């Protein structure tokens, strides 16, 4: 029978918005007064669901509310959610950095959190001294560190500089050293925040590999990332957090797909966008079509796709430029197109108009892509919508390959010849 190693019950965390000042002193006094009389904390009842975009009436929010889940030994849990959904707060509570307002977390075994690499590095100390310091901060004993010292140095790849103060290190070396120490922790439960977002590609792959090893050794891992590929590679189970509440729990693939689906609900027709810009010109619609003019939300790799943007002018403008950025599911920009590249000038005395942009033979590797749209003039933005539409690129059966190795982003047609 699998052993439950983490049990989270009705966990909630309240935050107070705004500044701490004399107002908070009166809150504190009120709280103490209620406590003295044996009454419940008056501020526990108020508090609104955490939704950044809406300005609530209360200045107390629940960053986390009613979180319940269990984790068995050896499971790798991916925690998914938008920025500000409460993922990091959850990790902070789990790693004892801050205490919850209500509920409890029960843990079996030693827990180590990796919310940042190189915590506590002292710039004046050498790499060697910092390995010991950082290791001890993370909970290792001196003898543990000593026995793994050579491995750590080798993993970090900075052995030449090991007796140099870390203030002389490049930021990349610092990160490598920090991760190397952390990677040699051996807790029963490991909590990892998006530390993979740093370092070069080669090092990122090393880190992912190391994390895979860790989970294969039967240890339990909790992992937060926006990198859905990494999530699907590493995790067995996923939870989705949205506005501080548990929105979904289950197999990682199901949760990731559901999450990407949520991003889809933000597609243009729903009209629910966080826009930026001075609104002189607005995107009133944006959609993709295929070669036949049919609306599309997916395409075969290597085919053409058309971007259709409907613009509406609300005020006098001197000129209008339009550009699009396409990002993959990891948020990496893959390409950027703009009208200036083709010397295509857009008329600026219109009321509404529709632009159609053809992207020929798009050879992005199969994945989900998000398009951000921009219109403006020089540095003046009229309207910006991030990730306003997304589409799938599907594998092209003509290409005779299913796997695109080394996490490549774009495929290039090649012609081979024997000379």
């Amino acid at each position, binding site marked *: 029978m699998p052993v*439950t190693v983490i049990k989270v019950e009705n966990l909630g965390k309240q935050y107070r918005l705004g500044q701490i000042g004399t107002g908070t002193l009166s809150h504190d006094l009120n709280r103490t007064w209620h406590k003295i009389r044996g009454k419940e904390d008056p501020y526990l009842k108020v508090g609104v669901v955490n939704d950044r975009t809406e300005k609530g009436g209360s200045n107390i929010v629940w960053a986390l509310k009613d979180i319940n889940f269990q984790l068995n030994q050896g499971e790798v849990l991916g925690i998914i959610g938008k920025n500000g959904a409460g993922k990091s707060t959850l990790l902070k509570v789990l790693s004892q*950095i801050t205490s919850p*307002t209500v509920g409890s977390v029960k843990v079996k075994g030693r827990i180590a959190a990796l919310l940042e690499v190189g*915590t506590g590095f002292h710039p004046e100390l050498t790499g060697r001294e910092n390995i010991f*310091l950082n290791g001890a901060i993370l909970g290792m004993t001196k003898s543990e560190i000593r026995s793994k010292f050579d491995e750590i140095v080798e993993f970090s790849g900075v052995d030449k500089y090991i007796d140099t103060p870390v203030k002389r290190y490049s930021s990349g070396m610092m990160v490598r050293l920090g991760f190397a120490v952390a990677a040699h922790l051996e807790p029963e439960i490991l909590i990892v925040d998006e530390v993979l977002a740093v370092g070069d590609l080669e090092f990122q792959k090393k880190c992912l590999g190391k994390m895979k090893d860790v989970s294969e050794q039967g240890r339990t891992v909790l992992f937060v990332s926006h990198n859905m590929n990494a999530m699907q590679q590493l995790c067995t189970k996923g939870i989705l957090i949205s506005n501080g509440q548990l929105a979904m729990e289950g197999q990682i693939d199901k949760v990731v797909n559901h999450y990407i689906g949520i991003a889809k609900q933000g597609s243009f027709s729903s009209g629910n966008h966080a826009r930026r810009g001075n609104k002189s010109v607005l995107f009133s619609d944006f959609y993709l079509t295929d070669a036949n003019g049919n609306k599309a939300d997916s395409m075969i790799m290597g085919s053409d796709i058309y971007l259709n943007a409907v613009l509406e002018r609300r005020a006098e403008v001197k000129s209008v430029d339009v550009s699009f950025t396409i990002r993959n599911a990891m948020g990496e920009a893959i390409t950027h197109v703009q009208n200036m590249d083709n010397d295509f000038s857009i008329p600026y005395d219109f009321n509404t108009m529709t632009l159609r942009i053809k992207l020929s033979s798009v050879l992005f590797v199969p994945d989900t892509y998000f398009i951000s749209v921009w219109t403006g003039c020089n540095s003046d933005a009229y309207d910006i919508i991030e990730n306003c539409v997304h589409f799938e690129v599907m594998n092209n059966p003509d290409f005779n390959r299913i796997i695109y190795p080394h996490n490549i982003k774009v495929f290039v047609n090649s012609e081979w010849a024997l000379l």
Partner: protein
Amino acid sequence: MNEEKENWDLVIKPKQSMFSIDLKALWRYRDLLLLFVKRDFVSVYKQTILGPIWFFVQPILTTLTFLIIFGNIAKISTDGIPKVLFYLSGIVLWNYFAECLMKTSETFTANANIFGKVYFPRLIVPLSVVTSNLIRLGIQLLLFVGFWLYFYLTGAAVEVNAGILLLPVLLLLMAGHGFAFGIIISSLTTKYRDLKFLVQFGVQLLMYASPVVYPLSSVPEKYKWIILMNPMTSIIETFRYSVLKSGSSFEPVYLVYNAAALVVVLSIGLFIFNKVEKSFMDTV
């Protein structure tokens, strides 16, 4: 209930009993304490030529200043003790207390970036401050011994007596008071920064309420009790009595009062510290 049977190693709950000091966890992190001590000590004199010798410079210069101002200009009595030894003993002990107090009072604000990323028993940090200052105190006491020997050999009226055996107790009391007051202040400043300003000059002023530049015997009877309230008074007086003997008073009752005060202050300190360490990340 079924749940009661399961044994969990760790239960994270909103409010834990406030007096629990997890000694086991502190012991598990003892290596961290030592490494913090090493860091504090080593990083201070990195890239200096004189290194730890700098620890001598500050007390010597302060002694010199006091010698000129309080000894020769204000002509405050030193109870017949050689002036240099009188001031130096006061300064070295006072410095230790002041340094412990000021550094521990910054525990939360100065380490917010580490505390925000990793959990370890927070008490490790103030404990490491007290310990690393102990090394500094040791070095400065060596300086004192050097001067003492010089005066002893040149025939000044100094002699050591059995009171010196109390030195470990004195050190413990000093460290304890610095630590206890320090963690109280550090806990309170996480939310309201007002105290920080008070500490900065408060420590300086407090020195004048301790017999550093004057002997207790020169204080008018009427005000003596105020000076005696200060825990540093009996510590400095006892130390001077044991190694300089002449004039200084030694009354065990004040040391007992001192220890009792320490228990009270330390309890308050640990109580507040425990309460604050759970939630300070939200307010600091």
